[in-house]
């Protein structure tokens, strides 16, 4: 990856950031079935900010302490809580966040380059140097599920890296934590305070557990007794400007930017085999429920569904239309059925099945941050201080890979697509002519891949 080049990011110190207000003792935050299912994944976010007078390490740590007062579940520790078993077995357990006020790990680092140089030249592996994360280990009582890294660049720019266990929060929650932090830093009112209500995703009184997608994933995980030859995965980021997306939409017909980009990347990843194919898609269900959850609902609330038997050779517009049709057909009922299916089989129960990958191993495409919170997090009172770039990555996505579609820095329809795919597929996609037609800016590609 970075062979022959020195590491440009050095870790200086490790500390723990605590909340300003102590947590009431004895508080716990139970995790839902959907949270339990995400045990194999980790989130890595990086927010890049240009130099500004108030963006100093000490002031950022102060505002982080203040915002952590609102998130007792972030400063807690994972704990296996024994569950009362109806049959009196006593061997069941579930994950619970014990809000013991321990704080979250904070790492201070320095990058020996300027921000512009970094954005132009950093590879995908180097980028993850900015979001330090620590493996869980065997003792979760001293392991912080969240880790924040503050990296200072030579020109005074700051990168805020947030790594988190996916079991605690999904991408929307993680982005809104940083959003709340920016509000606290500007001493403004926190617009999306966290909604900590775990029972929101408890099964319904008349559960109807049924999930074809998760059943097949679980069966596949159980069937593969020998560890899959782990193909080396790399990542790249494609930033499409407003004009590019508009031209793509004109090619793709009547579709949303997500549908069009998902179709584009699906066809180009699968090329040259353009037959019937399936795709797994993921969307945020917070606002697609009859009783919608607040944006800042803390926890996992993504729904995964499959698009089957789409003929990839039929053209971009047909594929996009198919994706759109299936997407619109997703019912809240499907989501609840999946949650109830997961509830019956969650780890810790006697009927538990081995943990399976939710993002993969088949190709998965997820729409992240539909409401553009990530780029709307200014740490200072003028618009010039919005993030220069935001990266979202998910670890643990072995297999065919993951495509994340999210809004980009520019206003309007601009989008950025972060792909995590096997090495050779990334190289292929970066050089693909059909994608290059829309003139994306390629950032954080693996070393050796010619950009543009």
């Amino acid at each position, binding site marked *: 990856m970075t062979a022959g080049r020195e590491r440009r990011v050095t870790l200086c110190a490790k500390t723990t950031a605590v909340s300003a207000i102590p947590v009431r003792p004895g508080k716990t935050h139970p995790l839902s079935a959907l949270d339990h299912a995400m045990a194999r994944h980790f989130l890595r976010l990086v927010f890049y900010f240009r130099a500004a007078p108030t963006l100093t390490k000490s002031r950022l740590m*102060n505002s982080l*302490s203040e915002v952590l007062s609102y998130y007792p579940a972030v400063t807690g520790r994972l704990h296996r809580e024994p569950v009362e078993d109806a049959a009196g077995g006593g061997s069941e357990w579930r994950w619970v966040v014990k809000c013991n006020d*321990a704080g979250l790990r904070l790492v201070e680092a320095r990058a020996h380059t300027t921000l512009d140089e970094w954005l132009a030249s950093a590879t995908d592996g180097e980028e993850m140097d900015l979001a330090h994360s620590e493996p869980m280990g065997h003792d979760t009582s001293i392991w912080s599920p969240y880790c924040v890294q503050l990296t200072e660049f030579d020109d005074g720019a700051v990168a805020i890296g947030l790594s988190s266990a996916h079991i605690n929060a999904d991408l929307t929650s993680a982005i809104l934590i940083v959003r709340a932090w920016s509000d606290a830093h500007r001493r403004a009112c926190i617009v999306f305070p966290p909604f900590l209500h775990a029972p929101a995703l408890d099964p319904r009184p008349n559960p109807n557990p049924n999930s074809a997608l998760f059943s097949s994933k679980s069966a596949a995980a159980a069937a593969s007794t020998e560890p899959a030859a782990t193909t080396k995965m790399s990542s790249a980021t494609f930033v499409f400007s407003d004009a590019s997306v508009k031209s793509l939409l004109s090619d793709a017909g009547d579709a949303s930017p997500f549908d069009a980009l998902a179709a584009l990347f699906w066809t180009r990843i699968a090329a040259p085999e353009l037959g019937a194919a399936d795709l797994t898609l993921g969307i945020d269900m917070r606002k697609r429920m009859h009783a919608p959850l607040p944006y800042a609902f803390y926890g996992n609330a993504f729904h995964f569904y499959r698009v089957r038997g789409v003929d990839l050779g039929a053209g971009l517009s047909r594929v996009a239309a198919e994706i759109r049709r299936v997407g619109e057909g997703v019912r809240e009922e499907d989501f609840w059925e999946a949650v109830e299916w997961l509830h019956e089989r969650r780890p810790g129960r006697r009927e538990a099945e081995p943990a399976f990958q939710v993002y993969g191993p088949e190709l998965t495409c997820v729409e992240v941050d539909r409401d553009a919170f990530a780029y709307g997090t200014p740490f200072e009172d003028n618009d010039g201080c919005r993030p220069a770039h935001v990266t979202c990555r998910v670890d643990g996505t072995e297999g065919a890979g993951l495509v994340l579609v999210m809004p980009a820095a520019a206003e309007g329809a601009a989008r950025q697509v972060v792909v995590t795919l096997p090495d050779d597929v990334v190289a292929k996609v970066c050089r693909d002519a059909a994608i290059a037609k829309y003139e994306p800016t390629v950032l954080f590609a693996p070393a050796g891949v010619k950009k543009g």
Partner: protein
Amino acid sequence: MPSSEAPPEFLSSVKLKYVRLGYQYLANHMATVLLVPVMVGFLLEALKQDPAELVSLWRALGISAVQILSTFFVLVLVGTAYFMSRPRPVYLVDFACFRPASNCRVPFATFLEHARLMPFFDEKSVRFQVRILERSGLGEETCLPPANHYIPPRASLEAARAEAELVIFSAVDELIAKTGVKPKDIDILVVNCSLFCPTPSLSAMVVNKYKLRSNILSFNLSGMGCSAGLISIDLARDLLQAHPNSYALVISTEIITPNYYAGNERAMLLPNCLFRMGAAALLLSNCRRDRGRAKYRLLHVVRSHKGADDRAYRCVFEEEDRDGNSGINLSKDLMAIAGEALKTNITTVGPLVLPVTEQLRFLASLVARRLMGASRPGWRPYIPDFKRAFEHFCIHAGGRAVIDELQRSLGLSAANVEASRMALHRFGNTSSSSLWYELGYIEAKGRMRRGDRVWMIGFGSGFKCNSAVWRCLRSVSTPVDGPWTDCIHRYPVDIPEVVKLL
């Protein structure tokens, strides 16, 4: 709990209570009680006489004008000599304490997690620190300096200076704002910080920051332990006797950045668990015009040093352990030695402050013991009731054990030691400045009234026990702007015997 047998029925009856109160009043105001009837009788006799008879009586005495004048002159001379030789009053104009920022706080869970993550602590040391913290009486809001929050702690000279600047300057800034004193008017500066002693000294740092005068009398006391705050006050008081119309700035603090113990010796791990960031700044004055605005007047300072005894000398000892890590070794008989030092101290303080009845009782008990023989079973020495001499007690919040021991040996009630316990809970053991956080608590609760007497007791390495007695000159009304401003409404809290952490 002070142990005493339940008094018999008749002793607790109301009438006998009044008899006891009457006796106490009689004994404490003996001089008045004797003189007043005599004067009244004399006056009545004089009034019964004819004025002309009084005049002739006066003439009969044959006192000439010269004799009257010289008597008057002698009286004036004696009076002036008396007033000139009396010590100058020392007033505490005001004091200010450092208010730690809430992002420096150390919750128990974080402290333990760090102890587990530090590469140099073994399993037994971690368990020991857990046990200490559970029984320490500290709360979740005590603060450590930023350098000690790192894994491992990044103690450097620069970090220690940064902590010193942070705590001292914010306390002094607050004091200047409260009292309105100009830095150029400060004549005497005394800074005490036991464990951190850079060159130039911390007092030079204060002189530099506030641009104090070049002829200031500055002193820096280091190495004198947790009771050094009262030693500084004693020094300032003596200097104020020598220099009329002066202001003295006294700063008490403890810098804990350089003193994190990174080894596994159990007796040396205690300071890691208990010591926290804090500082206090006081303004003392001997100007008569400050009497109107001063809060307290210093009545007595009594210092007792038990260093002549080897056991007391080695009781709190800074040394290196087997692996070369330096730390402060607290010996097991710390409490016993503290008790002895306290006994020495109160033997001197007692006659200065106790009412006459208490002193008589103590004398009686002493005589009885001498006559009957000390070996008589069940006859414990009489401890004078200091609650009759003081309204408020500020006991050095060295740890829960210290406060418990003093409460027991002085026979104090829970309300008397509440200030010490709550200061320990909220701020931890801030060493020499803890007495001022406790005084701040009493003021913030609105309990300080004019005429109240305060007894401050400090213990420190050496082994020293120092006391100071203050009298309140004006009632302090709430709300008080101080370190307790944002949390006083939550206090007092009930501190459990053992906080279950794991």
